[in-house]
């Protein structure tokens, strides 16, 4: 009898130990570098989800542990980080880095190892590798979904010519190439196009050239550091009286620290976003309030409009998929994700066969009446006026750009 109870005791402790092994989720996410401003907020949202899910008992009865490393917005670091997560930390699930540029290098790796990857605001990063276990959380799909809003707004106010400047990196090139094709099909004439190396800091020469070409619209595809430099350059030397719309694909103008430091220089710019106050989704107001408290403690972006809700949604999607399939098997989860729709705090999410959103809708907003050095002003409706899509629209564009900017 004592022998049996001894064996049973061993067995129970073995089971208990196995059950207490946490579910490890791994991510390399920018905390410094050009994308750091957004990455910090995104990581906070993910950590909030981990706390919430652990309070409810975890995944499959096991605690969830999030392992995050800083990729410094540098694509050269991500293969090493994800190899380490897989082979040293031995994680069970992977979330992609924030942004197209750090994500691009690991697409071959996850495809060849047959791993599920939850995308994090990349743009068309899967279009060459065509991995079938990729699921992107962003509200856009292909270039049409992103640019048609901008181009339609422009054409509605009589624009006929367009200029393109794009960084020479994966995100900007994907977007610019798609946008140029759509512009051509829409009958717009391209009067200037220029690519620039990602490390460019001085845009005066390019802005001068744009001014000389006299376009009606300027479509910019840039990452936060260059977006800031471009906005400053435009405010420094002006882009000319012909330009009606300026912006389009400028990453970083959604990060709170950037918005705070640029202040009134933002006025007039028409740019993409993912969520601004005024858009109604179930559960988002409550999330933003809780987030604001945690962000104040962590001294991170206090508004949390752009990335945090969508990163929390990644967590919600994983939670629902793991609970439904009752496993962590990559293939099983991928099949489940392809065939279902998921309710999140940013609305229902489902994907097409390429892993991008089945029903994309990219808001285009215009900055209006923004004052300097004021973070809380962005909570008010009217600072980021929604021009597109129609179901969220809250105003018409103010043109020309130089007038909307209040410039010289």
């Amino acid at each position: 009898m004592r022998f049996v109870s001894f064996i049973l005791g061993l067995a129970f402790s073995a089971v208990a130990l196995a059950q207490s092994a946490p579910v490890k989720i791994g991510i390399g996410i920018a905390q410094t570098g050009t994308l750091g401003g957004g990455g910090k907020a995104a990581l906070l949202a993910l950590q909030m989800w981990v706390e919430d899910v652990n309070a409810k008992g975890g995944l499959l009865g096991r605690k969830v542990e999030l392992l995050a490393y800083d990729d410094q917005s540098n694509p050269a670091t991500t293969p090493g980080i994800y190899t380490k997560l897989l082979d040293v930390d031995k994680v069970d699930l992977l979330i992609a880095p924030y942004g197209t540029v750090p994500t691009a290098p690991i697409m071959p790796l996850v495809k060849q190892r047959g791993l599920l990857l939850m995308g994090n605001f990349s743009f068309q990063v899967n279009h060459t590798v065509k991995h079938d276990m990729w699921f992107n959380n962003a509200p856009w799909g292909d270039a049409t979904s992103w640019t048609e809003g901008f181009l339609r707004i422009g054409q509605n106010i009589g624009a006929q010519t367009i200029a393109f400047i794009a960084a020479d990196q994966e995100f900007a090139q994907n977007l610019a190439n798609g946008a140029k094709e759509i512009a051509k099909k829409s009958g717009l004439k391209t009067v200037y196009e220029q690519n620039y190396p990602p490390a460019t800091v001085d845009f005066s020469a390019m802005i001068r050239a744009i001014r000389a070409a006299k376009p009606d619209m300027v479509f910019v595809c840039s990452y936060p550091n260059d977006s800031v430099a471009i906005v400053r350059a435009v405010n420094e030397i002006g882009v000319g009286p012909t330009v009606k719309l300026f912006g389009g694909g400028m990453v970083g103008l959604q990060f709170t620290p950037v918005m705070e430091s640029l202040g009134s220089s933002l006025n007039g710019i028409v740019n993409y976003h993912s969520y601004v106050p005024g858009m109604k989704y179930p559960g988002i107001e409550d999330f933003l309030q809780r987030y604001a408290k945690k962000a104040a403690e962590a001294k991170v972006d206090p508004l949390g409009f752009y990335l945090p809700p969508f990163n929390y949604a990644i967590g919600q999607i994983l939670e629902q998929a793991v609970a439904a399939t009752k496993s962590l098997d990559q293939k099983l989860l991928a099949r489940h994700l392809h065939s279902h729709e998921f309710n999140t705090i940013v609305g229902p999410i489902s994907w097409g066969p390429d892993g991008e959103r089945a029903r994309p809708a990219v808001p285009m907003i215009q900055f209006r009446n923004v004052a300097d050095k004021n973070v809380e002003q962005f909570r008010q409706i009217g600072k980021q006026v929604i021009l597109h899509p129609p179901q969220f629209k809250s105003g018409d564009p103010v043109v020309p750009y130089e007038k909307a900017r209040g410039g010289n």
Partner: protein
Amino acid sequence: MKFWIGMAVTVALAAGLALSRTNEYFFYAGFVVLQFVVLATAWNILGGYAGYVNFGTAAFFGIGAYTAVVLFKAAGAPLALQILAAAVISGLLGFGTGLLTLRLRGIFFSIATVAVIFIMETAMVNWRYVGGATGMQLLRPPVMEPFESYTRMLFVTMAILAVIAVSIARYIEVSWIGRGLRAIRDSEEAAECFGVPTLQLKLFACTVSGALMGAAGAAMPMYMSFIEPPSSFSLTYSVSALAMPMIGGTSHWLGPVIGAILLGSVQQIVTVTISNEINVLVVGVLLVVFVVAAPDGVLGLLKKLRWWLRSSR
């Protein structure tokens, strides 16, 4: 004879490890250490033997990587062919660089080699075929038997390359070429007076050095499954390839090997446990410490230790 046995043992060891159950990450990190053995040995042929400090390692390494990418993209070439082609192209670049700069002395030569890095990087940034500044994703071909994974195969490949590089360095060191290079290092003017063909020897060393660095670079794109200019032409390669022989000892072929294994292993351990930055700091600090306090490197220290032990008896 002992040397060849040692080399055979090294290759056998590498292959044995690759076929064993050792953790995958060991090969991921080990590849980098072996890569630095090749780079350090290649650097030392010109830098240690001849005394011409080459800061342009990153240029030859990067061009080797891009050559491999071009062959892979254009013709799906196998790895061995990529490495061979990379060695040829980087060797040519080494020859060209030598022609242009070897008439310059000291710091001018070194600064000129830095210029080559940036010019090559700019050229690749402007070449859309290899992805420009955006870079390119690369899907590895299926791994051949008996290796379990592509990384393990790359590990063994790099071990073989390391053996080849060290053999070439040793041959140069003991032959008349080595004697000529040492004469150049001690006093170039005197060597010329004695009829040593200094320009030809320097060109030879530059070409061989560049070719080996290119061969090391060729495996990089497949290792990362990705290539882009800034990391392929990073000055960190130049500093490491210079620091490792200085730390190990520049007058003997064993020096770069010791330096690369020591410093490379420390770097990999630090990267996994602490951070990537500290790893570059380690290189810089150790370089300065050894250059100031132990100019003959670890080998020099060992020699002094042996002499001190012998004389105190």
